[in-house]
């Protein structure tokens, strides 16, 4: 269920800063995650998402700023906090010699209270692999096992760091279903991703992170509608680079124009108004179209508009 804006905060981050030897990973970052919502940190690799989430998980200490989780703080309530969080790290390899059930049972033994091993294995649909060694699992199965180990302590707050990176589409959907189920039971989720479709599909609210700062915050719909564009038109012609940006911006309904990889992307109010004039203009210049696509604006377009870069450039 979508969290109401009056729900108490599950996570509150203020003025977070973390610098490594030669680079500032997180810079004056603020976040608020409400109880019961699924919150996404969206950004390219190196944006500071993992550093932020690991500070929240108590694995890194910040250079400055405060983190309050479920009303507690790491310095004061570390042990109490750990038993209420479920964590999946970006890259953890569980012991390959143990079976699925043994791995979950091991993690269960760390928590004073939690779910039963069978229940969690059922939840991530690994029943048939109960007795299989971890080393024999596929990438998607390993990732679901990692989520099972995160869920077995019956957490109130679940941190997932790039849970579906590198997975095939079916495995991604299976993980999305698990996260949906957790949220439907009232659990709070914070996840990082550089997939826009994942953020749009899963998250109640999204913070777009770049260079260690939050550059946009809101529901996926709010962020997309902030562009004020009804459609995005992508087209390519022979000699795309010879077209002047100003000439495109002068066309009816065009709000922004950007050249990337030899084709232009136009954010427009309505595709059916702009496309005819665009075609006329190109014909008048003697430039035959090599491609033409339209799509509804996505979080990718939001990111591009805000940063001038594509999420995938660095991915």
């Amino acid at each position, binding site marked *: *269920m979508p*969290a*109401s804006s009056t*729900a108490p905060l599950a996570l509150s981050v203020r003025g977070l800063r973390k610098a490594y030897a030669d680079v500032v990973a997180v810079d004056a970052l603020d976040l608020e995650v409400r*109880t*019961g919502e699924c919150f996404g940190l969206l950004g390219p690799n190196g944006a500071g998402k993992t550093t932020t989430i690991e500070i929240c*998980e*108590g*694995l890194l200490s910040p250079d400055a700023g405060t983190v309050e989780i479920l009303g507690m703080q790491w310095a004061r309530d570390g*042990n109490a906090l*750990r*038993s209420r*969080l479920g*964590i999946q*790290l970006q*890259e*953890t*390899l*569980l*012991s390959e*010699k*143990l079976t699925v059930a*043994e791995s979950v*049972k*091991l*993690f*269960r*033994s*760390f*928590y*004073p*209270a*939690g*779910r*039963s*091993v069978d229940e969690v294995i059922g939840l991530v649909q690994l029943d048939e692999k109960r007795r299989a*060694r971890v080393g024999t699992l596929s990438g998607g199965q390993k990732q679901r096992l990692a989520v099972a*180990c995160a869920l077995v*302590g*019956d957490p*109130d707050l679940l941190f997932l760091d790039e849970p579906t990176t590198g997975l095939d589409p079916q495995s991604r959907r299976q993980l999305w279903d698990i996260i949906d189920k957790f949220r439907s*039971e*009232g*659990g709070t989720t914070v996840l990082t991703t550089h997939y826009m479709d994942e953020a749009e599909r899963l998250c109640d609210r999204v913070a777009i992170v770049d260079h260690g700062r939050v550059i946009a915050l809101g529901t996926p719909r709010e962020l997309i509608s902030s562009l004020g564009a009804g459609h995005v038109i992508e087209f390519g012609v022979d000699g795309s680079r010879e077209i002047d940006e100003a000439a495109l911006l002068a066309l009816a309904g065009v709000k922004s124009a950007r050249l990337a990889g030899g084709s232009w992307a136009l954010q427009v109010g309505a595709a059916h108004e702009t496309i005819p004039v665009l075609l006329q203009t190109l014909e008048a210049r003697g430039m035959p179209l090599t491609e033409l696509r339209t799509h509804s604006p996505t979080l990718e377009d939001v990111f591009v508009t805000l940063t001038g870069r594509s999420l995938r450039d660095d991915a």
Partner: protein
Amino acid sequence: MTLDRSKRARNTTDNTPAIVELTLSRFREFYREPEAVFWVFIFPILLAGGLGIAFRNRPAEATHIAVARGATNSPIVDSLQNSTGIVVDVLDDTAAANALRTGKVALVVTPRADGSVEYRFDDARPESRTARMVVDRAVQRAGGQQDPVPVADTKVSERGSRYIDFVVPGLLGMNLMGSGIWGIGFAIVDARKKKLLKRLIATPMSKAEYLASFLFFRLSLLVVEVASLIGFGTLVFGVPLRGSLTQLAIICVLSSLAFGGLGLLIAARPRTIEGASGLMNLVMLPMWVFSGVFFSSGNFPKAAQPFIQALPLTAVNDALRANMLQGASWGTVGGELAIIVTWLVVCFTLALRLFRWR
């Protein structure tokens, strides 16, 4: 309305204590790795068996000598051929010189016309010096020499003084070191490299219980390791067990913990198996060489002894030998035990201070 998660029933039963699950995981990771089982249990026994056979006590070997031809009619040839323990080849001068040079014979005897005898041999070869004594004695007796003092020989082969008796405690010490350092070191560095340590400290797991699970695992394996190697030595080669078994058990447990602490210290920082492996070799190589596994550490110069005696494996080997071969009192092994306990305390203290979980 948000569900109130705090009111949901949480399962607090159906849970095994973490230390039990952690220790079980150590066992599972071990016995599901057949190679590890081989190196810990089978290899030391094969090594002890091989060494026991190679260095078994053989009856005294006959002394091979040559008598230069041209003197075949000399009575000395007959008396030498009749002496027990001397094998005589009669060769011409060139062949005799050749045989001496290539080590086929230890000594060349040339009887001279004036009745004197010439011995040709290399004074640097122990068997040649022995041959000279044996041959000279036979020659002098044949010449009529009498022993002024009558003697009687009683031959013994004392259990506890053979090479196999020396090497079995050494192999046991080496095995305790190897499995302590490798068994703990590699497992921890591997878990760090896989980011498993980082994942574990994100749970409420007690770090002390995690490290303790390695020690429980080591101590359980210890019983099997010690029993199989000592059992093999005792049953197959009759290696003595003269000391108290309680003392032996305490030496083994303290040694295993000390080497476990050393393994933990080595594994405190490295992020790669290669890095840890280099450190382990650096630590273990001097002990393989100096600590008296295959030959006595007393063979090294006196100036090096303080260093050698301070090595944990030297103390372990000395204590094991004192217990098994001499049936030593507590006072005798006290010094060694003190060295072992010092290593144990220092390694654990440093390891816990330096340990990196990420």
